[in-house]
């Protein structure tokens, strides 16, 4: 992995289908800081939905497929804290009895969330971005508590020209998405989302950003229903913006 300038892009399934601009912006940013990007087209899903709902037997072949698809990769970058967590933290357990266990563990060690990759692997916090708006940051749970990414996204945001970063109260309180939780316990999920929307509104920011597109999808829906003027944007989306 040392010195390689080619990054393999891991695009979460729902980003691929519903929020493609997050992946497009990720490519833009990686190229701007000097990396070549390849996208293994055989990828589908890391297996998280089935895994989180307790269906490990269904998640396992999915994970094995993923490991095969990315086996050749020097380094894997993903614009999602929860999906990167799936590979880094949970693949070892899920594939404990699989013949691909060793490959999975090796792959995990070279799989990174985007902001983590930029700051800790590429060693950059200044990516030449401009975004002259008031922005508040939501600290997505997986990135924060599983990958321990507290500072990295903020370090990147602070270097964005013109960006005014406003801290929200309880920025690390869960937004309420939680995957299938949002469907099984819709009322609680929405209630949590609305509490978060209130914290966001209290900052007066125009945008809320995060490293997890699933949080942003959920918040976009909640804010939309409240007819809020706040827009959601992924950290990659901010970093991809250049001076117009």
């Amino acid at each position: 992995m040392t010195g390689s300038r080619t990054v393999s892009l891991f695009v979460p399934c729902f980003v691929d289908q519903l929020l493609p601009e997050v992946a497009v912006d990720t490519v833009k940013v990686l190229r701007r800081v000097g990396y070549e990007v390849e996208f293994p087209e055989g990828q589908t899903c890391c297996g998280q939905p089935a895994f989180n709902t307790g269906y490990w037997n269904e998640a396992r072949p999915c994970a094995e497929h993923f490991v095969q698809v990315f086996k050749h990769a020097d380094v894997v970058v993903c614009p999602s804290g929860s999906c990167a967590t799936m590979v880094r933290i949970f693949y070892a357990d899920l594939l404990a009895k699989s013949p691909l266990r060793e490959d999975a563990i090796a792959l995990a060690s070279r799989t990174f969330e985007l902001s983590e990759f930029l700051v800790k692997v590429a060693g950059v916090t200044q990516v030449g971005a401009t975004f002259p708006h008031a922005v508040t940051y939501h600290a997505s749970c997986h990135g924060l508590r599983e990958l321990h990414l507290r500072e990295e996204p903020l370090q990147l945001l602070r270097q964005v020209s013109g960006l005014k970063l406003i801290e929200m109260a309880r920025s690390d309180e869960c937004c309420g998405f939680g995957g299938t939780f949002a469907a099984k316990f819709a009322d609680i999920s929405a209630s949590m989302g609305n509490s978060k929307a209130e914290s966001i509104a209290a900052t007066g920011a125009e945008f809320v950003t995060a490293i997890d597109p699933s949080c942003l999808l959920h918040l976009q829906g909640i804010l939309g229903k409240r007819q809020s003027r706040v827009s959601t944007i992924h950290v990659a989306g901010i970093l991809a913006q250049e001076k117009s």
Partner: protein
Amino acid sequence: MSTTPAQRFLRDAAEKSADLVHRELIRRGMESYDAAHLAGRARIKDWEAARQKCQEIKREAINHLDRYLLQFEEKVTSRGGHVFWAANGEEACTYVRNLATRLSVRTVVKSKSMVTEEIHLSPALEKVGIKVWETDFGEYIVQLRDEPPYHIVTPAMHLNRGQIAKLFREKVDPGIDSDDPAYLMAAARRKLRQAFFAAEMGISGANFLVADAGVLAISTNEGNGRLCTSIPRIHVVVTGIEKVIPRLEDLAVLWPVLATSGTGQGITTYSTLIGGPRQPGEVDGPEEFHVVLVDNGRSQLLADAEQREVLHCIRCGACLNICPVFRHIGGHTYGTTYPGPIGSVLTPHLAGIKEFKHLSYASSLCGACSSVCPVKIDLHHHLLQNRRNATEAGATKSSERLMFRAWRSAMLHPRMYALGGWSMRKALRIIYGLGLAGSILDPMRVWNRHRSPVPLPSESFRARWRKSLGAN
């Protein structure tokens, strides 16, 4: 027509999620706790080292549970105390009831014990005509309302002072004419004082059972626990077998950590140690001392290699306080003795996985609970394991099983996945175009109940990549 616990939970959760008055009350209470908790942690030089130490103490205790329980029992009996091992709640209740009947007990004063809630001890005693007084202020309040405690540390946090004043006017003293908390506490003190001095039996729980000294440790603030264990002539302790710790010195870190996590205090006002009945030469104290060690499913957890550590819980309540789900639905919605993250993890083991597995799904797995647990129990990962266990036990809906099998097929075939994604976007665009969002035809209707519809791009990322982005 009876509803299952899962159905009741969904119904109550929906109601509470929409109850903004309730949410605001809980938010203010938790805000106060958050500030106190942070201040409390600042008093400890190395909080992570404290957590580590507490985890090690509990691990040692649980991994040698038989040895330490026997050591504790030996010391207590050498001082004239009695130790009774109860396999389940029924045995524990029978023992206490028989004891009370044999000793002509008519009145009992109780200090807080979640285990006594778990085994429903009060109803068992009331059934034979014994009057049971809850003396912890919060427990006394919910007892007057005939409802279970809302929270394991602050049982009445769902009530405001106006509600409590009205309750006291109706049930305690018609002369109550203020909702000032100090005034209400004074009224409770006057009423309960009569009970303390009239009761023949005092029942308490225990926060810790100290093996080497053979004493129980009780952490309280009000002094009711002190009075329950000093004045009546019989003292009965009802405790879970997992409360054991090896040494007296372990309390030097456990006491401050319990207090910090529970209320943000450096230590609770009374950290009491009791090892037996009144000894010869002592001025006062109970003549009889009985410790009821309750198993009720705990020994089963020992065999679970993944989840044995759940027995390390010191019942501080920190996971309840931080949990965003708890903050939105409150303690009563869980419908279990132990609510919050620890309740969701533990209840399937104590009361059956089929009936209570729904609690393990009622979580976004945010992990905040694990991050604050003072004994470092990996709570949110245990919820995930419970989900897996439920699936493996065949306890999930067949429609869901079929759905994930279909999902798996799609995900193993990239072209099928891409086609599936494209079809879904296309279908949704048509459905929404016809104004049918939220209708029975809308597969996203659950999502759309509380949110504006998801974006529907005309092109997936991979299509775009193939078309134009591929070149570096």
